[in-house]
């Protein structure tokens, strides 16, 4: 990276208006059934955000909307003050572990290198330098010795670490992690939390979909309670309390659910 752009980025940072992620009035619906309703929040740089909510609350949909993979009915999403597509390089995504076929003939090292593919670009080959960087990322997660293993030989936790390494190697500034802690061993969980904290301390931002309410206060400094709409967003110690959780998990908006369902089937109820 040359000095010119470096300077430019510093200038931008100093203005401090370009939050890593800024979402205004985001509304998403599938076949007229709202999945996200009027979601608004701003994630500031250097924060570790837990995204918490019941099943079907729209957490994964939120990620997809951020990455511009699904059409939205309204609202605006700014990633580093820009459209996502323009800032794609600076966003790293860790999909759910179940999303791929782990029997696929690749090694763990190759999977991590995939994080560099868009940087390498079309028609260019993976070089030794790229492999070294992939290995360094794996080192950080303690799986460097598994680089040549086929991915089906890894344990669930190791597979999750491989996915995280693939995101790290990208050296992004905003991380979107979809349930990185689901069905992993304790060691993996500790390492992932450590890495996420390092990222935060380096001024990066991470949004983490998380299910285990017990660990939320100790893992995340900021929390987004989501159930169709934003129930609460803010510092964990201020927001993460019984009343909000009750609203997130208890108060299902049954009437709204029924009405939107009726809308979808074009019935009056």
């Amino acid at each position: 990276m040359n000095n010119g752009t470096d300077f430019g980025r510093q200038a931008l940072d100093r203005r401090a208006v370009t939050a890593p992620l800024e979402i205004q009035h985001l509304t998403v619906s599938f076949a007229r059934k709202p999945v996200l309703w009027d979601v608004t929040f701003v994630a500031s740089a250097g924060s570790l955000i837990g995204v918490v909510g019941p099943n079907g609350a729209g957490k994964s949909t939120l990620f997809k909307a951020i990455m511009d993979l699904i059409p939205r009915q309204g609202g605006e999403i700014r990633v580093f003050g820009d459209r996502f597509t323009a800032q794609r390089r600076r966003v790293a995504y860790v999909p759910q572990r179940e999303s791929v076929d782990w029997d696929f003939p690749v090694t763990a090292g190759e999977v991590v290198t995939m994080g560099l593919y868009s940087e390498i670009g079309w028609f260019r080959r993976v070089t030794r330098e790229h492999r070294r960087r992939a290995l360094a990322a794996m080192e950080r997660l303690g799986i460097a010795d598994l680089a040549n293993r086929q991915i089906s030989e890894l344990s669930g936790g190791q597979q999750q670490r491989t996915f995280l390494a693939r995101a790290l190697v990208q050296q992004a500034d905003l991380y979107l992690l979809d349930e990185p802690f689901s069905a992993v061993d304790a060691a993996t969980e500790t390492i992932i939390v450590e890495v996420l904290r390092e990222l935060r301390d380096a001024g990066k931002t991470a949004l983490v979909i998380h299910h285990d309410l017990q660990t939320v206060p100790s893992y995340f400094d900021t929390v987004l309670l989501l159930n169709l709409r934003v129930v609460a967003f803010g510092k964990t110690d201020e927001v993460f309390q019984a009343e909000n959780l009750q609203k997130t998990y208890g108060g299902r908006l049954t009437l709204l659910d029924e009405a939107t369902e009726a809308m979808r089937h074009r019935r009056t109820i």
Partner: protein
Amino acid sequence: MTRIITDWYWPLDGWIIAIGILCAASAALLGSFLVLRRLSLLGDSISHAILPGLALAFMWTASRSGWPVFAGAIVAGLLTALASQWLQQRGRVDEGAALGVVFTTLFAIGLILINYGAARVDLDPGCVLYGAIEFAPLDRLSIAGWEMPRAFVVQLIVLVLNTSFVLVLHKELKIATFAPEYAESQGIPVPWLHRGLMVLVAITAVASFESVGSILVVAMLVVPPATALLFVNRLKSLLIASMLLGAVGAIAGHLAAISLPKWFGLRSASTAGMMAVAVGGLFVLVCLVSPRCGLLAAGYRGLSLRLKIAFEDVLACLYRRSERGARSPAKLEEICNRLGRSPFLVQLAIWRYRRLGLLVHSQDGWRLTESGFERAEELVRSHRLWETYLAENLAMPAERLHEAAESLEHFTAQPLRSRLAEEISATEDPHGTPIPPERGTPRKPQD
């Protein structure tokens, strides 16, 4: 009909259609389970894989028809199903690939056998298999004094066999198809059911292969069930609908085969091929009109919904106007301006509501009748109830409430309104306008 379709000859064409319908129905019946199990290509695979069985049986008996050929084909068909299943489970080969490996290998063996046999015995590939639905009525049997085509009898037997299999094991098949692992935990012998199904598919393929051409059975195994899936919701209706679709396709196919080519001065075209094309045509047709994916239906319902919303907005607009104290009848332009809708749409709404007796013309504008006023009040009540509900439960900013309530109000009737009313505490909407009371119910007591 006979006038449009020249050369229609009942003793021939009637039988062809009857045979086609039977074949289509028995294939569609089994095909429903194959499609649900994601084994749609099994029919095609089996129809290729039976070749070595046929060739061996022929070389052994030197006869083109009869039980050995049938048995050989069934054994080969079963081998395909079992071997591919084994490869998939024990060899961890991808499902489609397993099928591909097995059937191409068997097919190649069959070709080599035929080639080998041809050098020794007088065996021409053409002699091994001989089947065209056009000629099926010519090969006759007489049963109890009734003379009928052999293919008809064979297809009838196959259909009875398949139907009784499905009827007897209806619920087991259902659960084994829907949730195989659960079924197994319940003690249902899923692998055996699967094998039974495969045997029947093989029998169906062989029976049709010999008499009507296998493209017919391959098409009928996949296309009618896939078509039916587009509009049915239950297994029973899937089975019935796909059988009917197959039958319709068979009839349409034969009619097309004997009439279409005439327009181009040709004699005729393959009936089996045309039946496959006809069920393909049915698929396209259903795609267009079925309520689930129906492109036409979606367009129609989208339009009618938009009209309903636009119309109801006119009513609500008149209500709000009178609420604000306007006594004079509303003019067309005024409504258009308020709603931001085209005069055409508003005119259409007025025309409709006038016919329904909700609007009357007075002076040079429009006024709500008593029943129109009631209807409009319901809408406005729905709207304001929703605004209040959303404000209280979603903490939505006030300026965005209107939009959300605007779409919800059109789907809200009295039952939902009273439930909404129970859940909210305010009697005014977030903008400070009172929520009109439900007609026929007393006002909520205010404390």
